[in-house]
């Protein structure tokens, strides 16, 4: 059922993001995460899984043997999943592949065309995610052979999405009013709920990566939870230092930062190491999210500050706190007397991910911009993406009363057809 938990993270992410945007963009934001589950669920089966986990081709990419899940059966696969059915492994991996591009959507939120998002996500899955997943997790993948550790996806999922997000924020440009207007979250209760669902689902993400309900899973579980708790405290502490107040958004953000940072380390560190990693993540990410104001890129929902930074932090700290005492398949970090060797390998993995993900994502975004155009018009942005991209509104509390008969799609609306559905968001000026 771990796979189900990971799947559930994506609606959680949808809420986490949806609560942070303005009311006029809530549906478009939620839609981007939700649609991604559907899109990736299909593309993964068709070809992406094969590219990522098919028989190795030169350490760089997988072969096409598993197109359409051909040969992905109910028996364990000795190389990929000795302990569980091959198909169970493939579906577990599916949701990792689905949440990663969904994470990126936080960077270009509130201004991207739906068509551009859909095209970008498709290309990115094949050209960026699949290869990187192969490098890190597939037998023969060069980073895996190198000996870099990534328990549950710190590189493939978080750094990868975080660096792609940086590219996205730069290429698509700032939201209208960024640094001028008050662009604030419209419904933080959704964000807290989303964070809660992510925390819940992440147990499937990390503990599930043990690929068995055993002691290692329990170790990963406690590491995950401890880091997350510590990160909540870390972020709240940072907020408190600045204005003598904690914030709800800070607590929710801290939880995610902790989950991100512990992802690569979960199965390799103990509770106290996890606590250190989490605390560091909470503090560092709380400071990192302010970078965008100085650097001047508009990473709308702080994917860079949380996922890129948190992911790097976690990957590197493995080099310090990892110990074979917790997982003999792991390695010993600095504190466990393993010296700097592991730290070095981790650094290579980070650098490779940064270079590959950022540059290729950057290029893809440019291409998409040329093909369909990334950005909505000024009028559409002001009206909000819900109306302009989906012809829906997020909230209609007022009794509109009256209105017109719904016209079966395509037909011309009746001659005089007043309607007073409340459109509380934006303006169509």
């Amino acid at each position, binding site marked *: 059922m771990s796979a189900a938990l990971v799947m559930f993270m994506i609606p959680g992410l949808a809420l986490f993001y949806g609560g942070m945007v303005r009311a006029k963009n809530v549906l478009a934001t939620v839609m981007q995460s939700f649609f991604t589950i559907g899109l990736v669920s299909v593309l993964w089966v068709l070809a992406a899984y094969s590219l990522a986990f098919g028989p190795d081709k030169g350490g760089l990419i997988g072969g096409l043997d598993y197109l359409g899940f051909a040969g992905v059966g109910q028996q364990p696969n000795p190389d990929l999943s000795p302990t569980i059915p091959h198909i169970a492994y493939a579906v577990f991996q599916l949701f990792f592949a689905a949440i990663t591009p969904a994470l990126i959507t936080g960077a270009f939120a509130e201004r991207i065309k739906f068509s551009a998002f859909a095209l970008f996500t498709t290309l990115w899955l094949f050209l960026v995610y699949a290869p990187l997943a192969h490098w890190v997790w597939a037998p023969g993948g060069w980073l895996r052979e190198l000996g870099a550790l990534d328990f549950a996806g710190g590189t493939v999922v978080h750094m990868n999405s975080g660096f792609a997000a940086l590219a996205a924020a730069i290429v698509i440009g700032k939201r209208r009013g960024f640094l001028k*207007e008050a662009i604030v979250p419209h419904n933080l209760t959704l964000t807290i709920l989303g964070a809660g669902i992510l925390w819940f689902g992440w147990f499937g993400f990390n503990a599930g990566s043990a690929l068995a309900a055993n002691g290692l899973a329990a170790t990963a579980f406690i590491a995950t939870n401890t880091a997350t708790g510590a990160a909540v405290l870390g972020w709240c502490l940072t907020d408190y230092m600045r204005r003598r107040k904690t914030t709800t958004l800070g607590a929710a953000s801290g939880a995610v930062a902790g989950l991100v940072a512990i992802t690569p380390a979960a199965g390799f560190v103990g509770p106290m190491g996890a606590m250190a990693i989490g605390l560091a993540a909470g503090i560092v990410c709380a400071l990192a999210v302010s970078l965008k104001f100085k650097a001047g890129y508009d990473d709308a929902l702080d994917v860079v500050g949380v996922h890129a930074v948190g992911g790097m932090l976690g990957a590197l700290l493995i080099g310090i706190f990892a110990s074979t005492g917790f997982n003999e398949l792991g390695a010993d970090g600095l504190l466990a007397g393993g010296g700097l060797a592991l730290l070095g390998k981790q650094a290579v993995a980070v650098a490779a991910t940064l270079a590959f993900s950022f540059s290729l994502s950057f290029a893809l975004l440019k291409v998409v911009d040329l093909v369909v155009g990334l950005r909505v018009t000024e009028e559409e942005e*002001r*009206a909000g993406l819900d*109306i302009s991209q989906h*012809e*829906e*509104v997020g909230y209609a509390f007022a009794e509109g009363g009256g*209105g*017109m008969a*719904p*016209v*079966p*799609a395509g*037909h011309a*609306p009746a001659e005089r*057809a*007043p*309607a*007073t*559905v*409340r*459109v*509380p*968001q*934006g*303006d*169509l*000026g």
Partner: protein
Amino acid sequence: MKLVVAVIKPFKLDEVKASLEGVGVQGLTVTDARGFGRQRGHTEVYRGAEYQVELLPKTRIEVLADDDAVEDIVKAIVDGARTGSIGDGKVWVLSVEQTLRIRTGEMGGDAL
């Protein structure tokens, strides 16, 4: 004493507020509104059924002002609110018989 009322596009509120402060206005009251006029509405679609929406979000502003300040205030509102595209809204002026500041009981101009 007059009451200047304006109906504007919501995203113009801050510009209007700023330009009003520019002409010395020290206070105003805002309410969210919906407006119908020449500006065409938009279509909403739910499960294939289409709905024409003709009432658009607007913001309604009220400013109490001394008679001789009215002209500047109206100008300031227009400066802040105009986009030139249809739907920019209206301004109208009413005459006020009496004004009072609740806190102090001051009347007339002193109430502002």
